[in-house]
């Protein structure tokens, strides 16, 4: 369902943040929230407006058993299944029943071979993480980067986002290709870079003309960058 009228949207966002939007209306609203970034912003604004009321709440240290229970639910899966798989696992829990999710984690365990995972958190100039990239290093065959764009970002349609790998030392950046603003995407590493990327020191993303950099080197501003970390 779409809430078109601005006044209704505002009123619903306010009552959702207040907690008085209930039952079927609340469920419907939560479904709309998932597809409507502007509505999410309205809710975030209301949450921020009302948040000081929580500051007046008396902090109470919870019993130690709460943390133990949380750890039990959070630790085992991620230790066994590794980095992205554990996200897949917990994503799964949100969607499917616990049983199905456990099955999923077990199947990931058996499918994913033991390689090191390389992770890059690319941040903006204020150190806010914006994009994460990960891949399996020392893997044979086609190598793919998993790219996750955080939040809901927008790109000028007349431009392109180009991903660069920074080789060790002072060598020049090498293009890995273009990415989009989609939340999750896969980039196939060019054949000639499949070995080299494992020793990259950092990745960066620059804004280029549509179609990518005309020179083979970054020409526009570098929006995000981050060092490569071996997990």
């Amino acid at each position: 369902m779409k809430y078109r009228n601005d006044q209704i949207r505002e009123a619903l966002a306010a009552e959702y943040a207040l907690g008085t939007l209930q039952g079927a209306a609340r469920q419907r609203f939560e479904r709309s929230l998932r597809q409507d970034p502007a509505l999410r912003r309205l809710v975030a604004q209301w949450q921020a407006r009302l948040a000081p009321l929580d500051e007046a709440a008396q902090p109470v240290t919870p019993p130690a058993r709460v943390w133990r229970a949380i750890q039990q639910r959070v630790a085992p899966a991620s230790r066994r299944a590794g980095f992205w798989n554990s996200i897949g696992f917990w994503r799964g829990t949100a969607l499917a029943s616990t049983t199905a999710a456990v099955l999923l984690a077990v199947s990931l365990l058996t499918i994913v071979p033991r390689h090191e995972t390389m992770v890059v958190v690319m941040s903006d100039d204020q150190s806010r993480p914006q994009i994460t990239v990960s891949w399996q290093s020392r893997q044979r065959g086609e190598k793919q980067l998993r790219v996750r764009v955080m939040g809901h970002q927008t790109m000028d349609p007349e431009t392109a986002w180009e991903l660069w790998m920074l080789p060790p030392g002072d060598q020049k950046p090498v293009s890995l290709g273009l990415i989009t603003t989609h939340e999750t995407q896969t980039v196939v590493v060019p054949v000639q870079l499949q070995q080299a990327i494992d020793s990259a020191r950092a990745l960066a993303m620059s804004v280029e003309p549509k179609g990518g950099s005309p020179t083979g080197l970054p020409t526009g501003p570098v929006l995000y960058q981050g060092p490569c970390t071996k997990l």
Partner: protein
Amino acid sequence: MAEPDILAQLMARCALRDQRAFAQLYRHTAAKLYGVALRILRRQDWAEEVLQESYVNIWSHVEEYSAAKSAPMTWMTAIVRNRALDWLRRPHFEHGSEDYDLLVEALPDDAQAPEALLALGRDARALAECLKQLSGNQRQSITLAYLHGLSHGELAQHMREPLGTVKTWIRRGLERLKTCMEAT
């Protein structure tokens, strides 16, 4: 480093599945969030359960958090609040139970809430000033709903007024609150 920055950084590390960062995040925030859950649920066992669910939820969705949208604590508090409200409105929850009705009856009116807020930061003062400008009924229904998770029906029961009247107080009160806070 300021507290929100510490939390944002811990959350970024949690997005990389850093268990130690998650433990630190818990140490920094659990008492506050448990306080929020207790205030809404009023029962320790329920609040523990909701706190546990909330942190599992925070861990599994932490990569969706983006600093641009809201402060870390606001984001986490919203998760706890939603979980707590879900808990109160479970289908099998005995809503009409006498115990619960008595709890609702016994709630304080929170007329003091604006005063308590004045001692806090700038945002809190702005909210307090604007809450003061609402009518007593508007202020009371909004603070009771937020602080204790009361539904429209429970508010009507607590304030001994018709449901429609309470709904109007809330709607108009929220509108005035927004206008006032945007002006300050």
